[in-house]
C-alpha cells in the first residue's frame, strides 16, 4: 500500500507541466504503483479566492476512488469556517493553507485560528514549504517560503492541531523537530518529497534521528516526477516494517485517525 499525500491537479501558472489532468495523474499513479493520492487543486493556490477550487476538487475526487481531496482554506476570507466543516463532511483527509501565497502572515491570527479550527475538527492542516526550487522560480513568483519558525509557532499554538508539512528539506525538519517538545513534534508529519538520498543520505539520517514514524510518502507530482520519492526509498535499507510505515501506515495511523 502506497499513499501519496502530496499531489496536485490542474495547471501551474509558471511553466508547462505535463500530466496535470485527472486521467493523467491516475496513469502516473499506476506507473509508480501508488494506490491513493491526496490531491490539491493547483490553480486555486494562486487565486485570490482559493476556496473557489474546492467544488471542482470534490467532484473530481468523487469520481475516482484513488483520489482524496485536500481542499484549500483561506482563513482571511469570510466563510472559511464553513469550508473547514465542509471538508470534514466530505471526509477530506486534510485541508491545506498556503499563507504566503495568500498574502497572510504564516503565524498571524488568521492562520492560528485555522490551526485551532482544524484541531477541533480533527483535520490535519497541510502546508507546503515551497513548490519549486527558489533558484528557478518565475520572476513574478514571489511568495515567500514557509519559515520553519512558523511551523514551530503553529504547533505550539493549539494542543490539538496536527500538521502535515510538505516539501521540507533536512535542515528545516531538524530545526522544527529539535526545536519542539516531543509532544509537539509528535503532531507533525513530514513528506519525503524534498529530502535528499545518497550520497548525502539526508533521509537515512532523519529516519534514525527524528524517527521513521514522522515521515510519510509524498511526491509533489506532477510538479515533480513521482519516481523520485520511490527511488529514495529503494535506496534505503529500511526493512519492510519501516518502509510500510512511511509508505502508508504513518499516514493511516497518524493523519487519518
Amino acid at each position: 500500500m502506497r499513499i501519496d499525500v502530496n499531489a496536485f491537479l490542474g495547471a501551474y501558472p509558471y511553466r508547462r507541466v505535463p500530466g496535470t489532468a485527472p486521467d493523467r495523474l491516475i496513469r502516473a499513479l499506476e506507473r509508480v504503483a501508488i494506490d491513493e493520492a491526496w490531491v490539491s487543486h493547483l490553480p486555486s493556490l494562486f487565486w485570490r479566492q482559493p476556496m473557489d477550487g474546492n467544488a471542482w476538487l470534490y467532484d473530481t475526487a468523487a469520481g475516482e476512488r484513488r483520489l482524496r481531496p485536500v481542499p484549500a482554506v483561506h482563513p482571511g476570507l469570510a466563510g472559511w469556517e464553513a469550508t473547514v466543516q465542509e471538508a470534514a463532511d466530505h471526509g477530506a483527509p486534510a485541508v491545506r493553507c498556503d499563507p504566503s501565497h495568500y498574502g497572510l502572515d504564516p503565524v498571524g491570527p488568521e492562520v492560528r485560528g485555522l490551526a485551532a479550527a482544524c484541531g477541533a475538527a480533527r483535520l490535519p492542516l497541510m502546508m507546503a514549504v515551497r513548490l519549486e526550487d527558489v533558484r528557478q522560480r518565475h520572476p513574478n513568483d514571489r511568495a515567500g517560503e514557509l519559515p520553519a519558525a512558523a511551523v514551530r509557532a503553529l504547533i505550539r499554538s493549539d494542543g490539538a492541531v496536527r500538521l502535515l508539512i510538505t516539501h521540507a528539506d533536512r535542515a528545516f525538519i531538524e530545526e522544527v523537530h529539535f526545536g519542539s517538545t516531543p509532544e509537539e513534534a509528535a503532531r507533525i508529519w513530514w513528506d519525503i518529497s524534498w529530502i535528499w538520498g545518497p550520497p548525502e543520505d539526508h533521509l537515512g539520517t532523519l529516519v534514525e534521528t527524528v524517527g521513521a514514524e514522522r515521515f510519510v510518502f509524498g511526491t509533489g507530482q506532477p510538479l515533480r516526477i513521482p519516481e523520485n520519492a520511490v527511488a529514495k526509498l529503494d535506496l534505503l535499507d529500511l526493512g519492510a516494517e519501516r518502509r510500510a510505515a512511511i509508505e502508508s501506515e504513518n499516514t493511516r495511523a497518524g493523519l487519518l485517525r
Partner: protein
Amino acid sequence: MTQIPLMLIDVHAHFYHDRTPRADWRERNTSRLSAGDKIGVTHHVASILGSWGLTSPIYFPSPPDLTYGNDALLTLQRQYPDRVRGYVTVNPNYTAHASAEITRCLGAGMVGIKLAASRRATDPLLDPICQVARERGVPLLHHVWQHRRRDWAGQEASDGAELAALAARHRDVRFILAHIGGGGDWQHSLAVLRTATNVYVDLSGSGVDGGMLEACLESVGVERLLWGTDLTMETGWAKLRYLAHLLSPAQLELVKWKNAVRIFPRGAFPAD
C-alpha cells in the same frame, strides 16, 4: 565479435578526501559507490573541487588544493579501476598550473576536464584550456547556473548562454552543460542549446521537475543527453525510471551510456 557490455555511466559524480570540511568524507564516498551498485552505475565519472572550501573556496580553488584533490581522485581511480573515472579540475586564473595539471592528470588516466565557476565561460582565459581539450580529445564539463540574472556570492558562475558562447568559439570541443536539474531556470539553458550542437546536457541535479525531461528531449534530442547524478543519486535514478517510459529501449541506452562513450576519449570505458 566482441560483446559490448551494457553500462550506466554517471557523467557527474563527486568524491571527497581527508582535507575537506567533511568529517564524514569516507561515508559519503562509500555511500556513492554503494548507491551506485543498487542503481546499476558501472562508471562514476567524478571530480573533486579542491578542498571543497576548507583551505580555498569551493569555486575558486587554489593550485595546491586542486593538485591535492586531483591526486585524491587519481588514488580513487586506481583503487576502483573498474568503476571510477576522473575529470581533472582546474582554475583558469592560474593558467600555467591549469595547463600542467591537465597534462599530468590526463597522462595519469583521467578522461575529461572539469571547470567549475572560477572564471566566466565567456572569458578568453578559458581558451587555452579548450585548446588542450580539443588536442587531447576529452570533453569539458562546465558548472552552470542555468539562468544567471546576477552575480552570486562565492562563484563566478556561467549560465547556459555563456557556455554556448564558449562552445561557439571552440566548435571542435565537446562541452557538457552541468546539472540541468541543479538549480536555476533550465528552460533558459535549453532555449540556447538547440543550436549549440557541441554542448551535451547532463541530466543530474536535485531538480526533478515535471516536464524537464520532455523539454530536454525536445530541445537537444536524445543524442545529446547524458545521465548523471551530482549530489543526489535518487534523483538520477528517478529520471532514468521516468525516461524508460518516454524512450524506446535503444534510445534509453543512448542516455545511459552510449552518448557518453561517444564523447569521452577512446578507451575510457570498456565498450570501446
